[in-house]
């Protein structure tokens, strides 16, 4: 086997492996795992969930390649150890180690942690603790720079005390600059403080300690004040997708992962403007990757990985202006290499379904749609104005193409929602079934998944209150009553999980204690329903003296200072508020690709932000 790097803990890790489920989670040495010399500037990137989830994350695959392309730098990986491995590691006194060289995470220069969503926060704390790194940034005198990135940075405030820095927006360029800066700092002998202060000046890097938060007596924020010359607001970064052609060496896991496929992004951002959707707001503007670049990546990765499936990914794949051209070319590669093509995030319209059917995407099994709500009125409120006819057409088309299972995503707890809207979900599903029957076809199985709406920062609904548990449970009862039939399977997310997600989503720095107490009382893997423990979160809030209702069930004042006020993800507050008011009036806003710029604030010049590869027709 390969020679050992100094500090390699393998000899202490190996004896634990036969005592845990799926030892391959901790091995490394997968296909295309990078060879690491262990010299120069060392980076370890973490995903705060199980290996099978983390290995499927596109962001980390991209960033690992980006760093490994920098001369004199190397990037390794670590994932959250499962319960059994954590027990073994703690009892053996073994610290968190990287998968490539099995060295202690605390010995690296940069410890980057992906923040995918709120229910991974306790896992993030656990990673720090297992690594033997002080939980609070204030207490760190040495050790790696602890940097957070990913979608969760839209409001990183509840995590602010635990991380040294956050990277806002897309990480490719910033991480590249950060790594080069750390290399420079190492050669010049900068201390940790100097390094942090230099790093915090990079565009897109947010150092929480650069901002002081003053609270009023009523608990609201008085102001968020930059100190030491920090800018008023930190703006997120975006990159040019045609310049950053990554990932180039995605690692092929031994085990079955969440997504076993090549993942190539066709564009970032989304212009539809669904008012509940955080990604659609914070990932603006839309930037399409050229057809040639997409095809080139697919071809190279097909040879390199051997995968049997390729996904062309984005927030709404059929919105890609050259979707027909790109799918035709990718299909050719698929035929040659015996791969199947999938297009996640399909819209519910005839064009999307016909395209998908013509490509026989993903075989003949299931087709997933997201009508989101039961009534057209409520779909106007959330600005996803799909008509009932669109939905019926899409389902009919899918059934004609031979789909035997239709998955439908809905949300409950949306602003202005009434019981009638909830009951309409049942009517819609039964209507779909009857229409299919009316056309002389056997209805497919409908898997109806209903989640609880959580208002998110930087969206038009950041002002609204979370619907309370009793009300959500009552609405779930309505669904249970109205959706009882053979061939219709109803499932929903645990609404208590949504409650914790909601608490943290719009939380401030005062919630850090809640997270730490929840972790200390044993919370891990909170997004896994079998491991989620609401009682521990309740106890943690109480211990921290935090009233969750203040964060959850309070309609925000129009001019209230939000905990994320100093973080600029593109859309202006005024734009978001207008959108919110439009929602309450039941008015829709047009897609910005249609030519009429809504001046959301992403670009100075109206409409100048879009990067399209072709002309758009809705």
């Amino acid at each position, binding site marked *: *086997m*390969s020679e050992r790097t100094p500090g390699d803990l393998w000899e202490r890790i190996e004896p634990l*492996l*036969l005592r845990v489920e*799926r*030892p*391959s989670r901790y*091995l*490394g*040495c*997968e*296909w295309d*795992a990078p060879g690491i010399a262990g010299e120069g500037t060392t980076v370890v990137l973490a995903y705060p969930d199980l290996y099978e989830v983390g290995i499927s994350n596109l962001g980390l695959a991209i960033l690992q390649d980006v760093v490994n392309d920098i001369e004199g730098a190397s990037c390794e990986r670590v994932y959250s150890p499962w319960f059994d491995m954590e027990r073994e590691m703690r009892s053996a006194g073994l610290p968190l180690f990287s998968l490539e060289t099995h060295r202690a995470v605390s010995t690296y220069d940069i410890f980057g942690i992906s923040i995918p969503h709120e229910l991974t926060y306790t896992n993030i704390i656990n990673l720090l603790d297992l690594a033997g790194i002080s939980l609070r940034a204030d207490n760190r005198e040495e050790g790696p720079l602890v940097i957070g990135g990913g979608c969760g940075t839209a409001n990183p405030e509840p995590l602010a005390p635990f991380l040294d820095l956050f990277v806002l927006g897309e990480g490719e360029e910033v991480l590249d600059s950060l790594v080069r800066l750390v290399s420079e700092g190492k050669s010049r002998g900068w201390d940790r403080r100097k390094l942090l202060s230099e790093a915090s000046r990079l565009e897109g890097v947010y150092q929480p300690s650069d901002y002081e938060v003053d609270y009023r007596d009523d608990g609201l924020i008085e102001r968020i004040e930059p100190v030491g010359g920090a800018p008023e607001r930190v703006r997120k970064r975006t990159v040019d997708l045609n310049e950053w052609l990554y990932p180039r060496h995605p690692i*092929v896991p*031994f*085990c*079955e992962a969440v997504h076993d496929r090549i993942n190539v992004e066709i564009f970032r951002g989304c212009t539809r403007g669904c008012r509940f959707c955080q990604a659609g707001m914070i990932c603006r503007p839309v930037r399409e990757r050229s057809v040639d670049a997409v095809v080139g990546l697919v071809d190279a990765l097909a*040879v*390199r*990985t*051997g*995968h*049997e499936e390729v996904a062309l990914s984005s927030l709404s794949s059929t919105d890609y202006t050259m979707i027909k051209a790109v799918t035709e070319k990718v299909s050719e590669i698929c035929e040659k*290499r*015996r791969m*199947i093509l999938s297009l996640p995030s399909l819209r519910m319209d005839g064009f999307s379904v016909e395209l998908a059917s013509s490509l*026989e995407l993903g*075989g*003949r*099994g299931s087709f997933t749609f997201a009508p989101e709500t039961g009534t057209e009125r409520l779909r106007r409120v959330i600005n996803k104005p799909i008509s009932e006819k669109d939905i019926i057409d899409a389902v009919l088309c899918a059934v004609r193409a031979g789909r035997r299972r239709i998955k439908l995503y809905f949300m409950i707890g949306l602003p202005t929602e009434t019981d009638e809207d909830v009951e309409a979900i049942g009517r819609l599903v039964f209507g779909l079934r009857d229409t299919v029957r009316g056309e002389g076809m056997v209805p497919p199985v409908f898997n109806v998944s209903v989640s609880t709406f959580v208002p998110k920062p930087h969206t038009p609904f950041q002002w609204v209150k979370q619907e309370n548990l009793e009300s959500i449970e009552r609405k779930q009862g309505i669904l249970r009553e109205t959706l009882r039939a053979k061939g219709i399977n109803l499932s929903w997310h645990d609404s208590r999980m949504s409650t914790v997600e909601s608490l943290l989503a719009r939380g401030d720095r005062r919630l850090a204690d809640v997270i730490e107490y929840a972790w200390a009382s044993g919370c891990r893997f909170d997004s896994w329903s079998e491991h989620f423990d609401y009682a521990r979160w309740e106890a943690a809030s109480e211990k921290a003296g935090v009233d969750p209702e203040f964060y959850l069930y309070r309609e925000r004042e129009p001019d209230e200072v939000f905990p994320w006020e100093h973080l600029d993800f593109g859309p202006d507050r005024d734009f978001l508020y207008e959108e919110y008011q439009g929602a309450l009036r039941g008015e829709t806003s047009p897609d910005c690709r249609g030519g009429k710029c809504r001046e959301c604030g992403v670009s100075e010049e109206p409409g100048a932000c879009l990067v399209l590869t072709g002309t758009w027709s809705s």
Partner: protein
Amino acid sequence: MSCPHRYLEFVTVEPLRLRVQFAKRGKARYLSHSEFSRTLMISARRAGLPLQYSGKYRPRMKVSLSPPLPIGVTSECELVDFFLEQYVSPAEAEQALERSLPDGIQVVRCRLMGSDAKPVGKLIDTAAYRVQLPTETGNEGDWKRAVEIFLGMEVVNLERVQPRRTRVVDLRPGVHELEAGIGPDGSGVELFMVLDDGTRGTVKPSEVLRVLADLAGAAEGSWRDALVHREGLFARRGGRLVSPLELGKHRPAV
């Protein structure tokens, strides 16, 4: 064939099988059977072998696998039959595969088989293991005695715990050879076992080890750190063990 002219063209593309013997060592020994077989299959895709698939919408690679290897056991004989659509020279296939395998997995050898050959999954019934015992499990004499007692028993009952059910099985008929001796480096005791594995049932090396350790008076659980290595997989023909890579060797593959 009754109508040779009609089929003439097909002769060259008649389904072939590439029988590959892999070794699984080092970190790869911690892969489960499903992880290991997935890895071999995706490696074969990377190697660009002319693989055969079945099923239209979700194509499935056609392969036949040798019996599972327990996690933690190393092996120099893991067999896979890859069903091919076209001819590929075994030497070329070996090189291409070797380049496409992750660390810890190597190709030992390759051989083309005709389409009428029995696939490995239906062929193998016997496995040979070599086991290095940790020194604290006892000396050569203890183990030799244990082996003698074991071989003299008519019935060796053991409780086999499986996820769904637990039952008592008799290991004895599945144990064909058993020896204890000092290993080649002279350091510790080594066991050699030939056990049922595959189409006629399976006795795991750890099961034999558990019984022997008890007979040898080894400290509770001390045998668990033994290094188990699968040396070969065979088909029993009368009293002979035949290697699946030797079978039908005198018949041309194509």
